[in-house]
């Protein structure tokens, strides 16, 4: 019974293109999350660089690596969205 319901649901989602909606929403939410994360990271890094300019080089390297890791999480979300969209 549940399986039947799930099947119907799946069919309805496939037919009405709700998967695309989910993918688009997911991509947008991932972008929001990554944007907030990177904005906090960069603002803190700039503050620290202004306070301690002699640390700027090390801070920049750490910041870029952190930004890359945040971006990686957003890209994981993006992969799921792409899987939804091309399903």
């Amino acid at each position: 019974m549940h399986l039947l319901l799930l099947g119907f649901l799946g069919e309805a989602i496939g037919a009405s293109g709700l998967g695309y909606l989910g993918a688009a929403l997911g991509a947008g939410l991932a972008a929001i999350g990554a944007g907030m994360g990177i904005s906090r990271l960069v603002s803190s890094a700039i503050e620290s660089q202004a306070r301690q300019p002699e640390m700027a080089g090390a801070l920049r390297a750490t910041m870029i690596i952190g930004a890359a890791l945040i971006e990686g999480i957003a890209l994981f979300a993006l992969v799921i969205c792409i899987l939804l969209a091309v399903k």
Partner: protein
Amino acid sequence: MPTTDSIQHLPPHTGQETGVVSAVAGAARSAAEGHTPAQQGGNAQVFNQLLGHIADHHELDFEPIGNVPLPYIFWDHDGFHTFSSQEALSKTGKYSVDTNGQSTSKATYKAIRTDGQPISFDMSITSNVIFLALAAIVLITLLGRAAAKAKHSLVPSGFRNLVEILMVFIRDDVVYPNVEQPWADRLMPFFLSLFFFITLANLLGIVPWGHTPTGALSVTGGLAAVTFVITQYVGLRTMGFGHFMKHFTGGVLDMELPMGIKIALMVILIPIEIMGLFTKPFALTVRLFANMTGGHVMIVTLIGLAFAFRSLAVAGFMSVPFALFISILEIFVALLQAYIFTALSAVFIGFMAHNEHEEHVNDRDLPHPPQGDKLSATAHAV
């Protein structure tokens, strides 16, 4: 999907040519002739043809001069098959191309058997292969010249200056802070090759008629796999087999906890640690791929806007300036992504090269300075 049927309505010439210029010309022609099908699906067709340009394809485009078809080479059940081009492939009757309902440019199509079955093992020389080889050749030539200059004199000049700046940057700011010493120098050629190769492969996409091999998941996956293998090798050599297997438990075994809780924690942590092993190279793969593809898709979309609106104003004030801006950004992104790939590889390898276990033991069990610590510890115990 409106794109699948649009290919049938289009005038025949658009199917035969690929590349930006012919796509533009085709769209202009269908716009001039006022085709109704072009209004239905023509924009999608242009967009898909341009997208096909980004994907791996069996052709080198030198539009408007011409195309060079690349060979189809594959292993199937009765041996090797080689075909000079897609026309030769289709003439045999045994094999054809897998259109798969897509209306991208036809040079992106893979070879399949005519009954629809996939072929056993495709090893065609595609544009990715050509441009990877080109990147390697250019790299060996240029860096070889810089190295030859270094043999003649100690004073850097000309191109050697540029190479040295980048090399010293990678060595001092990326590898040395992250990787511990015996491995930092041993793996320096790997990191430097990685950086220069990815930079050059990324930049090849900006050159006219060029193609970005790093815009393919298989290429970036291969690069990440090399990093993965080296990471695990360094871990095995540094920690030894016992500690290497132990680090999958997330350090639970060394904690002072009842056995039941340890086992319960390990049930959770071991799958997480093993997953964490594979998410790192996966993230490396997808990051480089998505960044290189993303920029190109942006350019395609901006150029495509001109065709979507069919207006010279949009082309002049929007498509071209924005596409130019993204192209300039791409030069920066090409360097940045190469740096990030190298830096993250160094960080991951650095985690493994760093003998975590010993340091933890020292931190926790020996609060005294290292001199004579064993003696004082035993004396205390006695």
